[in-house]
């Protein structure tokens, strides 16, 4: 097994275990958020293995450095008590879950059966230079739309979280 392959499996196992830790941890929301961080960081590691260097750095900076810290900030601000799973009254959910699980298992077995080696890449693929060039030429509209969206989100969050609007 080559080193990148080994690293991939390590990161994948970490991501799955910590994702499960986040969803199943009902007692402690802060620990759930910390598990989410582990998932984010291991996904960033996988991005590096897939030659998406800038995306990996941005994954850690935005998800790890900003989004999950915001979650933690709110959890600490609200001082939450423990949570519980959904009560059993929605019984169809169990069937839906079981069906989904079987579907995923079959799908997963089919998918994991293949072994597609990725092709060799040109120099500089996934670096900040190439990504920046295509972001500010071909996809300029996306950048503009996102800047508008973020402005709207700032205003929205301010209005929602403010105690009273004067």
């Amino acid at each position, binding site marked *: 097994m080559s080193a990148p392959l080994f690293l991939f499996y390590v990161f994948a196992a970490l991501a799955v275990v910590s994702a499960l830790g986040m969803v199943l941890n009902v007692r*402690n929301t*802060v*620990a759930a958020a910390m598990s989410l961080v582990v998932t984010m960081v291991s996904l960033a590691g996988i991005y590096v293995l897939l030659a998406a*260097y800038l995306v990996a750095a941005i994954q*850690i*900076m935005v998800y*790890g*450095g900003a989004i999950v810290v*915001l979650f933690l900030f709110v959890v600490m601000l609200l001082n939450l008590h423990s949570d519980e799973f959904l009560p059993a009254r929605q019984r169809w959910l169990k069937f839906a879950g079981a069906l989904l699980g079987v579907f995923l298992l079959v799908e997963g077995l089919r998918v994991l059966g293949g072994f597609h080696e990725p092709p060799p890449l040109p120099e500089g693929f996934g*670096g900040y230079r190439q990504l920046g060039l295509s972001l500010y030429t071909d996809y300029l509209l996306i950048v503009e739309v996102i800047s508008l969206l973020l402005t709207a989100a700032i205003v929205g969050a301010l209005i929602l979280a403010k105690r009273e609007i004067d």
Partner: protein
Amino acid sequence: MPVEVIVKTLFILIVVIGALAPVMTWTERKQSAVMQDRIGANRADLGGITVLGLLHPLADVVKLLTKEDVVPLGANRIMHLLAPLIAAVPAVIAYGVIPFAGVYTFGQDTISMVVSNADWGLLYIFAIGSIATYGTVMAGWSSNSNWSLLGAMRASAQMISYEVTMGLSVVGIFMVFGTLQLQTMAIEQDATFRILGFLEYLIPGLQLPAFLSAFPFVLPKWGIFLQPLGFLMFLATIMAENKRPPFDVPEGESEIIAGYFTEYSGMRFGLFFMAEFIEVVVIAGLVTTLFLGGWTIPWVSTADFIGVVTPALGEGVATGLCVIVHFLMFMTKVVVMIWLQMSLRWGLPRFRYDHVMDLCWKGILPLSIANIFVTGALLLLLGDAS
């Protein structure tokens, strides 16, 4: 290749961090004593030898290691024990992309004096720095203490805010040097520029007199001269990111005891302390590389140095000498930056919390965006003039 990486890593751990950080604990105590007209640490002695109190770091480590390691009642044990590690590790591994000397050719081999010459080196440092937030947040939350929680909330808000401005304040430097790779940036700064040289590009046909290309009218092409505003903003934001005075509201002693690490004792407290000092060294290295030319000798480029020394000593010895001089140059600049941070620490009072936030969002953020615009406009106007 792996041997080379291991040797460089050990070199950084032992020489740059391992030697500087403990001495800094002593320096800081001595400097605070000087600023407050006291004598400071001078009592630790080993059989009568005190060496000006330089044995104090050793005594501190022994003391911290033998102290009881208390986990408060009701604390989340695992997170409480993990938090100091998460605070300390990012500070150490951030050094992996900071070059401590240049690129040299010894016969067949080319050696770049940096552990990892990643293409996205600066992004790596920012990413690592954003992980460091979790150490403080975990420490504050898991301690089950109100002071700790207050400190953690202040710290997380401050660190998120200053991360944004920290990134924006160095965009000007990326634009000027056209790279994110720290070694390439240092090599770019291994040159000089004429202070009035831009006039030739603005006024076609103008030829500046020759004396303007000589010593006093030529500056090393360092980031601090190309981006003076960027330097000030970056220094302020990265010091706030490290939560050192005057930005130490998350651990303001007079308000919330020690902030997020109030409940820590023994070596775990020591780890938080060491993390702060290691971060000071990392900040000094980063600011040196980005703005003070890294390992370069002002006014003397690497080629010039080797060219002058080679006839006397031969090329191999000349290159070796160059490595040593460059490393000493780097360390000198790092020590100067550390001194600057310590002087600011003892020279300025603590900001009020809302002032810290105002400075970030209403002061540095608009200024840094304006800096990006001005830099871009100048680069368009002058081409590759600088």
